[in-house]
């Protein structure tokens, strides 16, 4: 597999197999996530994109009966090694979900959540970071006058940016996004895409999308998955213009799914 590496490696996934009970959802997957780069995962529904993404911050631990083998390195450390502090891992590798999932709390309490979890309670410090994160997620102007209102009353796209803001407070190194735009309209989608490109300056991003245009618009690297396998992983331009595998070509030219 050809891959031009032009940034330091942030995460390295090698020979990962993952089973839900007896069902094998990931088959010997390899992938390299470079720092300050947007890596996209594409492929038809059910091919294992979310599963792979959730393996990167061990969210799959929450599902009973999941077995995983192989290596996933974050800054050269195996995140599945015994004694790994999973809660700390998740503060370094954060996640934005497919459906916006703000807590049923006020906007402020949503954004301050991760800080409080980390034991930060100083009013002044909280206020500062909450504001900064909302600004960083391009949401401050819309919500600054109603921080005490329920987050569930916000429109969906603002809810999703609230989830981004909530994540920014704890300064993760990697941000995982699982089809973050799938419940949004095209204009809101564009806004999130622009936000991702802005965030790339400070964060490493992995995004799952079933939207090939989105992958080609925002990502630098793309992996094409099919039935649990990583069929092809390359820089986005090459993958979309000169794919090296017939399966990839079938998919991007629309012959599949």
């Amino acid at each position, binding site marked *: 597999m050809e891959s031009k590496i032009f940034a330091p490696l942030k995460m390295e996934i090698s020979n990962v197999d993952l089973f839900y009970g007896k069902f094998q959802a990931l088959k010997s997957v390899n992938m390299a996530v470079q720092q300050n780069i947007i890596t996209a995962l594409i492929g038809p529904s059910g091919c294992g994109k979310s599963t792979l993404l959730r393996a990167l911050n061990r969210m799959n631990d929450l599902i009973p009966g999941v077995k995983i083998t192989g290596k996933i390195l974050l800054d050269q450390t195996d995140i599945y090694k015994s004694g790994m502090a999973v809660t700390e891992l998740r503060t370094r590798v954060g996640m934005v979900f497919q459906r916006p999932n703000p807590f049923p*709390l006020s906007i402020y309490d949503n954004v301050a959540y991760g800080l409080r979890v*980390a034991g930060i309670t100083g009013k002044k410090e909280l206020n500062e970071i909450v504001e900064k994160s909302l600004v960083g997620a391009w949401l401050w102007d819309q919500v600054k006058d109603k921080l005490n209102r329920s987050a569930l009353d916000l429109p969906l796209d603002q809810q999703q940016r609230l989830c981004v803001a909530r994540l920014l407070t704890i300064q993760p190194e990697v941000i995982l996004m699982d089809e973050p735009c799938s419940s949004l309209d095209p204009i809101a989608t564009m806004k999130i895409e622009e936000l991702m490109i802005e965030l790339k300056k400070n964060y490493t991003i992995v995004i799952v999308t079933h939207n090939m245009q989105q992958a080609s618009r925002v990502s630098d690297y793309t992996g094409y998955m099919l039935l649990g396998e990583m069929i092809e992983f390359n820089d986005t331009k090459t993958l979309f213009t000169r794919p090296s595998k017939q399966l990839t070509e079938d998919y991007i030219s629309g012959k599949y799914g």
Partner: protein
Amino acid sequence: MKLFGEKAVRRILMVTAFSALSGLLLIALFILNEGLPFIFKYGIKEFLFSSDWYPHLGKFGIYPMIVASLWVTLGAMIVGAPLGVFGAIFLSEYTPRPVMKIIKPTIELLAAIPSVVYGFIGVMVLAPIIRANFGGPGLSLLAASIILGIMILPTVISISIDSILAVPQSYREGSYALGATTWQTTHMVTIKASKSGIIASIILGLGRAIGETMAVIMVAGNSVNIPNTPLDSVRTLTANIALEMSYATGMHRQALFATGVVLLIVIIILNSLASVAIRKRMVKR
């Protein structure tokens, strides 16, 4: 083979539903009809707030019984609510699902144990323990509180678990993904999101406690008095009706029905509070 036509089925169902409803309504009306005139004749204030319950002298103040019922119910809540809520949290958030799915129906089964059995255990086991360790007659406010606290556990646990499980998994995932532990997730998100259901479970438990009769008669001691300590013997509203109904006549009998009216009103209030709490939860979602 079609035994009944659509129309006939509908008619049968309607008659059944109507008779069930009218049965309940009749009972309520009967109690009101027997009790209300007495309350007005005797005087609402005198009835509710006088401490003199001497039926043979024509004195019918149920204040000590009201106080006893409130204390017993409060006691049951102090015993049962924390146990029940923490039990529900443990079962829903810390126990593997398959195990929880066995334990929950088992706990719900406890609600089916006849209250006389709880009372029996109270008399044979709990009262002697209280007498030996704290003094007093043993049959007391404390004994009644503990027995009732245990009796409301199935209600509190079962409804609390249901409302905790109804919290969308996506809330929990959002919390874990920010580095929260299970306990942080539980008390910062899950319980907050299921708060009204948990409150409803406690209120329904209260309704059960305040209405319970047999077990209370057996363990509370039944002296008409305003308790000074939890070790005192008390008589609740329900116990008073059950104990005296068999020989009461005239005014005395009407006074017992009036006691029933008071209970009816309290329970209606509690149940309305519970359904408001539950409805609030559903609206929020």
